[in-house]
């Protein structure tokens, strides 16, 4: 159960961690942040420090009088049996808890994209998409054409491009200006989690035509 103790060298920038802590980060990127933080003590520490600042701001927050009834009701509920919320998703193999939560605790259902490359879409909507990619060693990572921000977290294996090599736990932050052509390192297949705020592109014609209608 020990998290992969890798030498993470590519971290998530503070601004993105702060957006996660304050709740302004879109869901698809939050999945990547929570997954990376599960693997990276450095970024976990930054997140918890940011939360300390959140706590300090909460302390100084302009208070609004609370209803005395609300207090009585709340105290009366302390003996209520603890709600059995859906159990928290646990890490499974190379997939941290936040990914297992998106998978609803089940193994990924891979779709073939050709050339041995597979993908599983975890979530897709107006705010972007997040998916798992499986790329055999030596193959190019499919270009999912980012128009905006893209975060890619390596879970297994590695890929490289002009900006460097990314191994397990590393996150590549790409934006419009980065014209990268990542290639999976030789050896074990590269599995990564990729989130983008650009709408998904499909390879076949029909879904592409439907895309603007369904906003996926």
């Amino acid at each position, binding site marked *: 159960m020990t998290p992969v103790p890798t030498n993470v060298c590519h971290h998530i920038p503070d601004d993105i961690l702060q957006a996660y802590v304050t709740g302004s980060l879109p869901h698809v990127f939050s999945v990547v942040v929570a997954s990376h933080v599960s693997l990276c003590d450095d970024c976990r520490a930054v997140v918890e420090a940011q939360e300390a600042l959140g706590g300090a701001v909460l302390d100084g927050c302009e208070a609004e009088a609370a209803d005395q009834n609300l207090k009585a009701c709340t105290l009366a509920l*302390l003996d209520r049996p603890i709600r059995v919320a859906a159990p928290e998703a646990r890490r499974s193999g190379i997939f941290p808890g936040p990914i297992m939560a998106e998978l609803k605790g089940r193994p990924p259902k891979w779709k073939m994209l050709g050339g041995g490359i597979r993908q599983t879409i975890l979530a897709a909507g107006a705010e972007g998409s997040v998916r798992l990619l499986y790329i055999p060693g030596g193959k190019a990572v499919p270009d999912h054409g980012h128009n905006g921000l893209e975060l890619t977290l390596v879970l297994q294996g590695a890929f490289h491009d002009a900006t460097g090599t990314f191994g397990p736990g590393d996150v590549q932050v790409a934006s419009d200006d980065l014209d990268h052509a990542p290639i999976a390192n030789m050896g074990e297949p590269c599995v990564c989690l990729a989130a983008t705020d650009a709408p998904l592109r499909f390879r076949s014609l029909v879904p592409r035509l439907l895309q603007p209608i369904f906003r996926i």
Partner: protein
Amino acid sequence: MGSGDQGGGELSQQTLWLLAVRDRRDREAFACLFDYYAPRLKGMLARSGMPSAATDDLVQDVLLTAWQKAHQFDPARAQASAWIYRIARNRQIDLIRRERRPLPDAVVPEDEDSEPDASQILALDQETGKLREALDRLTPEQRAMIEQAYLGDLTHTEIRQRTGLPLGTIKSRIRLGLERLRHELKELR
């Protein structure tokens, strides 16, 4: 209540109340937490644009979650207010987005106890205290900016990049993170 069995007279009162809830299921301490946090949480939720009809339910939900999850509270990693802040944001996002906020796996406790806990708890408290002082020294405009980021609505913000990260064990890293945040606040001036 909360008579400092964690070995420090300097811990924040809220942290002592939360420890009393965690260790002894102390209802009186919970009532104190309610009196302290309910008005602040109401203020926070009102700022983030939540309709007032919904805020009471959410305030209750946050504080009951704190009661139920108190066993997860680790004062060497967070003061009570930071922990409550996190729960409040989690519950708010779950509610607004109608999907679970992605949360990191819990830390696996290993080589975490190399330092005695009491000194770590105090060190965190002191570092958080300095962060608060730095926050207090900001101009009203700068403070408003920080408050808007941490208490404001949950619409998506523009993201820009920065780098550079601290090292050490997780607990000392949090303190380093706090220190760095404090310096960043200072540089705002």
